[in-house]
């Protein structure tokens, strides 16, 4: 039985705004085992990035975790004070941010930025050891170590993304969160990076949460997939099950909304409407206004997120679309 | 030179060069060849896809076709009701008139509308600028278009502001604006790439439907081959300012011949975890076409290139059979 690096239970997080609370994350449950890659997929506003910043407790001033547990190797991070959490951040759990350029300080060289994290968390390492480690990290992500003393703006987009991954790996975390790392990249660069990420994950037997709105990328990179909608987890199962046997109507709709270059050219099915405003989410199941199978119970009661069969979880009153 | 009956847009030897490092008082001799010697024929009523990665020149081509940029060289012949007109050399009043025939749909639904103008103003702008119709005529036309693009009832959308609409709705407004003065040719620059997935399909289906119903000819610029497959009858693949392959959609996707097209197709992730992609055969990273040397522009990255490719100019586009054009010596 492989142990879980991360267990998230009933995680709820709200933003406080002038117009009222925004229910960004509601009762989210999932776990990530050692060496496993879990993909979180969903559209804008579904809560996937909110989950990521909650896991690292990098919340802005107006965000609050209302309830739940984030068990990292058994330790709950939520009640910990900032000073305590800092010991875990980067050392046990780290993150590759969206838009790599924003994650790097333009006035420091790439090497200096990687060293900064290492000096904080690995105080026992000697300078020589750290130097070697930086070189090793560069090679691991597919960068030439001789570029380490350059500045971020001198790198291309793909190279910067690799550098950010190197930074995230620098302290050998148990789990890494990657938030849309390839979104801004061209497809050929993206392909090389995805293959590299998979390779690194395999070599280091590292757990990973990969966040993206692109289901094709998620399909390639994940062992299990969680589909988020309007702040809640709609469905979670193995990658194959999600793609070939989805049971939540949103997942089903999502699958048929992606054009593909392989296979038969099929008509794309449109999901009517738009993702809901999280200031005033619909009552009951938040997908009910757009769901072709919605009935009264869907509009009144929130369906529980439960195991429908063999670890295939979904929150739906009519899984598979049956009435 | 006669132009065929069905050819709507005939592009010949289109080039755009940008000087690098010039100042107010100095000239530069380094140029970025964003678009080089582009040749393309677009038939009336068809949707043509222009596909490529960033820096390949597809957006620049779009801007040249709508004259947001002036071409350095070349002809763009538009087959209008009044005969064939070379857009590339138009000026002044003629340029303004041509604007009635070619319109554009932009990528960013948030920035392509003036936040201080109402939806009515945005859609009616082409009519306003070109002096078409009275106020009542315009209101009618705007209402008609709003209904056509699915924003009904029109009265409730006409006098709202862009920030009150969602991304998908805004893009529909963008489509309405592009079609308001009934152009014969529309350039769509990545119209769905900034939209949520579940919203994208609605907009794409709308565009296809309108293409059929109103016989609009599209040039669909995108980096997403899957979207291009869905939207386009024929696809042209661009690399560093040149078209390297050009064929009917299914033909291109199933029998790609140029090594770049093959690399591109094999790199696209597939939303099916059981699908094994072919390995991507390409070397090195993308570069900028600055003062390019007279050899095949794909030489540095091509897995099949040899000395012949290095010693000869960039290969011309040739018909390899069944209207499948490829620019490669090794095919």
């Amino acid at each position: 039985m492989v142990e879980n690096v991360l267990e998230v239970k009933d995680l709820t997080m709200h933003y406080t705004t002038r117009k009222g609370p925004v229910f960004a994350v509601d009762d989210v449950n999932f776990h990530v085992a050692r060496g496993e890659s879990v993909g979180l997929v969903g559209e804008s506003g579904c809560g996937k990035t909110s989950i990521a910043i909650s896991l690292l407790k990098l919340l802005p001033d107006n965000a609050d975790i209302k309830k739940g547990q984030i068990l990292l190797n058994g330790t709950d991070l939520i009640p910990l004070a900032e000073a305590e959490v800092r010991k875990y951040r980067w050392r046990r759990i780290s993150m590759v941010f969206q838009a790599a350029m924003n994650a790097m300080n333009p006035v420091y060289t790439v090497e200096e930025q990687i060293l900064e994290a290492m000096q904080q968390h690995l105080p026992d390492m000697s300078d020589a050891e750290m130097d070697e480690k930086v070189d090793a990290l560069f090679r691991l992500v597919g960068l030439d170590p001789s570029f380490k003393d350059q500045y971020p703006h001198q790198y291309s987009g793909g190279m910067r993304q690799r550098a950010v991954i190197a930074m995230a790996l620098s302290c050998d975390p148990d789990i890494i969160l990657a938030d849309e790392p390839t979104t801004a990249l061209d497809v050929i660069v993206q392909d090389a990076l995805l293959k590299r990420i998979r390779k690194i994950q395999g070599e280091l037997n590292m757990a990973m949460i990969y966040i993206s709105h692109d289901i094709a990328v998620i399909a390639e990179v994940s062992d299990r997939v969680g589909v988020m909608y309007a702040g809640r987890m709609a469905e979670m199962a193995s990658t194959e099950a999600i793609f070939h046997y989805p049971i939540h109507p949103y997942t089903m709709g999502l699958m048929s909304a992606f054009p593909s270059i392989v296979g038969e050219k099929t008509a794309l099915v449109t999901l009517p409407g738009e993702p809901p405003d999280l200031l005033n989410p619909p009552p009951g199941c938040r997908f009910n206004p757009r769901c072709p199978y919605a009935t009264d119970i869907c509009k009144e009661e929130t369906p529980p997120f439960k195991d429908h069969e063999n670890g295939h979880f979904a929150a739906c009153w009519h899984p598979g679309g049956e009435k | 030179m006669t132009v065929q009956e069905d050819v709507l847009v005939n592009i010949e030897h289109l080039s755009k060069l940008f000087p690098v490092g010039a100042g107010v008082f100095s000239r530069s001799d380094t140029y970025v060849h964003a678009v080089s010697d582009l040749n393309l024929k677009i038939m009336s009523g068809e949707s043509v896809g222009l596909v490529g990665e960033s820096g390949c020149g597809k957006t620049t081509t779009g801007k040249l076709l709508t004259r947001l940029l002036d071409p350095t060289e070349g002809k763009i012949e538009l087959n209008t009701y009044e005969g064939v007109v070379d857009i590339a050399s138009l000026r002044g009043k003629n340029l303004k008139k041509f604007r009635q025939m070619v319109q554009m749909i932009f990528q960013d639904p948030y920035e392509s509308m003036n936040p201080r103008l109402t939806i009515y103003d945005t859609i009616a702008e082409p009519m306003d600028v070109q002096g078409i119709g009275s106020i009542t005529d315009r209101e009618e036309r705007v209402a008609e278009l709003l209904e056509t693009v699915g924003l009904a009832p029109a009265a409730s959308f006409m006098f709202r502001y862009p920030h009150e609409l969602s991304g998908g709705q805004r893009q529909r407004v963008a489509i309405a604006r592009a079609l308001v003065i009934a152009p014969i040719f529309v350039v769509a620059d990545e119209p769905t790439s900034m939209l949520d997935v579940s919203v994208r399909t609605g907009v794409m289906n709308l565009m296809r439907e309108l293409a059929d119903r109103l016989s609009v000819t599209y040039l669909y610029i995108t980096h997403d081959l899957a979207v291009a497959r869905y939207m386009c009858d024929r696809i042209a693949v661009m690399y560093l300012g040149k078209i390297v392959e050009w064929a009917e959609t299914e033909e291109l996707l199933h029998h790609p011949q140029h090594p770049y097209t093959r690399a591109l197709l094999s790199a696209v992730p597939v939303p099916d975890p059981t699908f094994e992609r072919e390995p991507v055969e390409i070397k090195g990273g993308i570069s900028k076409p600055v003062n390019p040397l007279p050899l095949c522009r794909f030489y540095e990255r091509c897995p099949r290139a040899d000395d012949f490719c290095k010693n000869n100019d960039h290969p011309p586009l040739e018909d390899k059979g069944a209207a499948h054009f490829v620019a490669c010596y090794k095919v």
Partner: protein
Amino acid sequence: MTTQTKIVPIPLWRVRLKLFWKSLRSSWALFAENPVGLIGLGMIIFFGLFALAHPILMNTVWEPRVYHPTMGYDMEIAFHPSQPSARHLLGTDPLGRDVLSQLMYSTRYEFVLGILSAVVTVVIATTIGAVSAYYGGIVDTLLMRFVDLVIMVPFLPILIVMSSLIKIGMLELALVIGVLSGFGSTAIVVKSQALLVKVKPFIEAARIAGGGDFHIIFKHMLPNLLPIALLYMMFVVTGAIFSEAVLSFFGLTTIEMSWGLMINITQTQGYLMRFDTWFLLIPASLAITLLCAAFYLVGRALDEVVNPRLRRR
């Protein structure tokens, strides 16, 4: 497929008016959130009423012979300046005129001066900023170098020199201040905003619709530049009132009555640094400070309306 669409029955101009009113109300709501802005606005309203009160008082309670701000003289009091009393709430100045009356009378000119300068500034700065940003190249270079020149040259000495060449009354002063500010840093601020607007896709969209330079500058750029120009207008008012005060203090203007002039009279008659004639100095100084502060506070609050990033969540 399209159903017969009803023509919107309300005429267009009325719709626009309604929308304008709605946007004004929401801007007000944002403005009112900030107590600073409300304080500033309150002070401006107070001064407005203060100015309006003067002609009313002159026509009712106050005898013009005694209370006229420039020509009044109170013969019933032996020595001028006289201390504040029931008759003269803020006393009389060395020339026997009621101080309160002078204060109230000047207020309207301060307003006129401030607002006139500000309007001139906004018109010039917005035009330069928009044209400079839109055309770029040699036009931009020339205009910006001229602006640099204007900024470099010290403001007050110019006014002092000018005052020796021409007679500077209220109108002339307002125009000069307006022109000098208009070609100053406000133009640069507007230009940088215009540069941001120029590259937005909706400008390209306007061009594709067939819009020429004129259409784009007037229909698209200016409406997006006015908020920031209006904001800076507030600061110009502050500067104008203050500059007038300084110039009048030095006696360089031909303005017949203003707060600065009140202080000038105080100084030339030798009553400046005396505690017992505080009423000659303090009210006028306070008025200048408070009115300038009022406009500045309003400007700060407007900043939050114009610049959404400054707003609290």
